[in-house]
């Protein structure tokens, strides 16, 4: 096992170097570039542009620039943003907790709800519950996040529609804040709140999280329930489940101890594969709900061609993808005694 992990890690190093080279070169070859943001400002004259290019280090050949970036990156220096002049690591760290709390909550809710739905609908296959969950799953899966986000905002935050539907009248209200992470009267950040815990602060945060977390979860509950349904269906047809029943075990024990534990193995590896999203955030949802996370930082930096920031987000994501794959494989082996690495 130890040798297997060491070998996997060793193999992933050249892979990551290759990935970083491709990312860097593609990013630099894309049309536009950092100076495009000045393109429509007549005060930024040719001599200003030439000076800015030099100051931003854009005059180096791409491979030289890549080498500079790579060697400072492996020494732990993510560089400075071309536009803010701040260390990239600092820009990522101040947004990371925001993204993690959003993505973590959404992942937790969607896994718990999705797996529960999936397991129940597998046990009660072709029941009304199964059909209901399947319908809901496809509804959620095919729901575009931006449409769903706006719809939620309209119903729960916009505050002046009275709807009559199927004979019942109900009013939408300003029940939830439309966007952001904290209300206007509250200063500070998530970390400040954790350092000086305050009940009303957590309530405010929770209220702001309801809509983005709901949008993110409903879309992915769908896939989690489908995964766990099929995984469970496969397991309950196994001989050992039939054997357990034949032994006369209680149904709860058959499902809970024999079927569920085996059905969950692929689900746990899938959860491990979702780890990179905890870092990278959700591009569209963060944009709609003005969530100050890494997804928005990435979009902002990408549109400005802020190379050091874009590169850091993409490359750290790539590293996380490689390692979460390795973690998934290790977990699989640890949970399933039939699998041995050599």
């Amino acid at each position, binding site marked *: 096992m130890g040798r297997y992990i060491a070998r996997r890690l060793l193999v992933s190093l050249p892979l990551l170097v290759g990935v970083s080279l491709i990312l860097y070169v593609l990013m630099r070859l894309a049309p*536009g570039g950092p100076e495009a943001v000045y393109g429509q400002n007549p005060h930024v004259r040719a001599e200003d542009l030439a000076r800015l290019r030099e100051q931003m280090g854009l005059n180096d050949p791409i491979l030289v620039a890549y080498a500079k970036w790579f060697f400072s990156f492996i020494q732990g220096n993510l560089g400075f*943003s071309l536009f803010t002049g701040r260390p990239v690591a600092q820009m990522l760290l101040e947004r990371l907790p925001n993204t993690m709390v959003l993505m973590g909550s959404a992942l937790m809710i969607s896994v718990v709800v999705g797996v529960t739905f999936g397991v129940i609908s597998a046990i009660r296959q072709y029941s009304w519950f199964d059909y209901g969950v399947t319908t809901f799953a496809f509804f959620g899966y095919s729901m575009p996040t931006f449409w769903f986000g706006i719809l939620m905002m309209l119903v729960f935050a916009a505050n002046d529609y009275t709807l009559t539907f199927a004979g019942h009248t109900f009013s939408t209200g300003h029940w939830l804040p439309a966007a952001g992470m904290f209300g206007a009267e509250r200063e500070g950040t998530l970390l400040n709140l954790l350092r000086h815990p305050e009940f009303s602060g957590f309530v405010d945060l929770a209220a702001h999280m309801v809509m983005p977390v709901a949008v993110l979860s409903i879309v992915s509950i769908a896939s989690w329930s489908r995964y766990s349904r099929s995984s469970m269906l496969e397991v309950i047809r196994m001989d050992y489940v039939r054997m357990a029943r034949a032994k006369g075990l209680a149904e709860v024990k058959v499902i809970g101890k024999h079927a569920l534990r085996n059905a969950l193995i692929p689900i746990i590896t899938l959860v491990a594969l979702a780890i990179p999203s905890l870092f990278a955030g959700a591009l569209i949802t963060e944009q709609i709900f003005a969530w100050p996370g890494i997804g928005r930082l990435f979009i902002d930096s990408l549109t400005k061609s802020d190379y050091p920031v874009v590169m850091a987000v993409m490359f750290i994501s790539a590293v996380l993808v490689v390692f979460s794959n390795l973690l998934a494989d290790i977990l699989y082996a640890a949970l399933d005694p039939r699998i041995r690495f050599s």
Partner: protein
Amino acid sequence: MQNFLLRRFVSTRFTALLLLTSAILSTFPGCTRESKLVDNGRVVVYHQQQEPDALNALISDMVATSDALRPIQEGLVSVNEHLETIPVLAREIPTIENGGVTLTGTGMSVTWKLRKGVRWHDGAPFTAEDVKFTWEVIMHPKTRVTSRDGFDKITQAVILDPYTIRFDFKQIYAPYDLLFSGGGAILPKHILNPYLQDPRGDSINKAPFNRSPIGTGPFKFKDWVAGDHISMVAFDDYWRGRPKLDALKMRIIPDENAAFTLLKSGEIDLYQSASINQYAALRRLRHVRVSPLASLTWEHLDFNLGDPIFQDVRVRRAIAHAINKKQISEKIYQGLYAVAHSDLAPLSWAYNPTIENRYPYDLDEARRLLDAAGWKVGLDGIRVKDGKRMAMRVSTTAGRKTRELTELVLKYYLKKVGIDLLIDNYPGPILFGPAPSGILKGFKYDISMSAWSAGPDPDNFALWHSSQIPPAGQNHVQFRNAELDRLLEAGTQSIRRSERRKIYHRAAEILAEEVPMIPLLYWSQLDPINIRLKNFKPNPSSSGNLWNCYEWDVVPLAEALSARGKED
């Protein structure tokens, strides 16, 4: 300034969807009801779509930066809502008449008299040293300043006494009065000098000051939560007197539907640059006031004069006659954007009204001009000359609904006179990108549609002078006209407004005669506010809407609503 392709793409689609949703919901029988609104009290929360790069206007030329800094820092002058230059940290605007400007051979000297008794937020006095230092920062080789335009014409800064400073210019520079207005807000020497003198590198670009600035303005910087908001509190020792509000907060809201919803619930008090698609919905809100304001930005069609088809002025004039600008304004821009005739806005003191309606919508005249130019109608209704079909492309920023609709209408207009127009759009960063890969600056277009933002000064040297053809400048039209070159040079070499007015009137005449581009519309800005906000004076110049936040005030929303009830 910055074209956020994805954001644009996403938000236009969002708007369409929101309207659709509203339409569906409004078909339900039911009525709107009085809602419970948020009232922010003595704090005004204003919206900004983007997040500033840094709170230093020298290294970040974003509108968002200017909006966040306007309450904190001040320049020597500012531009008011009527586009007049007003003194701020200067006691008066130097002119030839008041002796502040003296001509010295080929150059000039400008003497600024500074306001006394002004204090920085940390209590240090503001003096001429700070003004000189600001110029030194701009000219320092390590400073990553976006533009040195104008500042590089200054040869030396001489401090005559702590409140008087003289700048010597190596040549006459007409917009001298605007040099220290916005982008050149005065910086505190006592804080930043060590960073500028630091021999190790470019630490001035990375100074902590750029994220927690001080200034002389009515509000002190308090806090910047990345991606969320920037907050400021009233400065008790402000030289005009303590502002009426207790605090200001700028919230960063990228999505226009979220901004609309926040204004609707009262969580934000000012929503800047609302989409024109939201105009009707905004007008229905009782606690919101929205009045369109003519801006200095103008939408225009540019010809690629490098293309032989467009080298014949008759073709350019024919296209100008074939376009019904009034219809575009009314049908696509809901009448909010006025028809444009010139590269200067009617608000400008140099605007030439005599060129208006030089090219009325006239299809017969357009056809006659094209016939005269040798383009004869072919079998498919499209004109042909020397075996070449009259087909051309129009390019603009992809994903902007109003521009895409305008293109379809243009296609229809030009078809009527026998021109086949094809649509070929690009994301903003590619369209406006640097030469040679950029579509405009690499001359890879036939006709382009985009907008330029004019300043309070009428100088458009960078757009039309033959030396400004890319890669050097913005003249991607590749317009070469010896007389216009001379006029544009003379325009910045002259100080007297009456002389300059004559120069720019003639320049407008040449542009109207030669039609290197067709002005389409002047943009309007929609800045809806919560009616509890008083003394809000929207400003079309780069001073922005925050320019007079020192005199903003609020009344309780309930009071404002009942006052509005009486008006109705």
